[in-house]
């Protein structure tokens, strides 16, 4: 059973890829702008989890730093887009 963990990580990566596809679909088809921003936020989180599973698979801690950067950028971009949604209406 030495191949248990690589198989589990492969299954997890497939599930995370499917989750990213769902989020991408919501970004493309979201009826309104806030749905697209929410889909983008979910895409960032799923991408971060995918980076962590890649790090486990290859036994390297470099992926951890990439995941940290993705998390930071996701927070900043979602906050900026939410602020824009709020203020763009005021200017109109």
């Amino acid at each position, binding site marked *: *059973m*030495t*191949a*248990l*963990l*690589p*198989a*589990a*990580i492969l*299954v*997890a*990566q497939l*599930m*995370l890829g*499917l*989750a*990213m596809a*769902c*989020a991408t*679909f*919501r970004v493309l088809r979201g009826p*309104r*702008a*806030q*749905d697209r*921003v*929410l*889909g983008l*936020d*979910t895409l960032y*989180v*799923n991408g*971060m*989890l995918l980076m*962590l*599973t890649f*790090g*486990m*698979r*290859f*036994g390297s*801690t470099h992926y*951890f730093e990439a*995941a*940290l950067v993705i*998390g*930071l950028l996701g*927070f900043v971009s*979602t*906050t900026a*887009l*939410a*602020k824009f*949604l*709020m203020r763009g*209406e005021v200017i109109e």
Partner: protein
Amino acid sequence: MTPLEQLPIWAALPAALLVVVGAAMALIGSVGLLRLRSFYERVHAPTLATSMGMACVLLASMIVFSVLQTRLVLHELLIAFFMIVTTPVTLMLLARAALYRDRTEESDQVPLLSTPSGSPEAEMAAPDGAEAVEER
């Protein structure tokens, strides 16, 4: 071939379970994002991925790296702390922006503020929503 196969079974079993459960949580959250009907229902779904999914995957990563490097590796706690702090902030900002947009457009999905006439909302909606003002 990979260093993962040298992992003892007592560490591989919980790590495998945690990583699959975490990814399944993220998938359930994203499917909820796809399937739920209104935005205010949808905004709840990705929190499954950011709380439970993230916690499970980070725990599995901590187990794997601690056993592989034969020392305690805790730097995943940095991501956990950061996500726990920032997720409520971003989602509440987004929900407030959506509520503000729906209210300025006089959408029937959200209850209007029960303010007396002459409120700033009515004046804001006046130029393009004349029929909405007449209702008041």
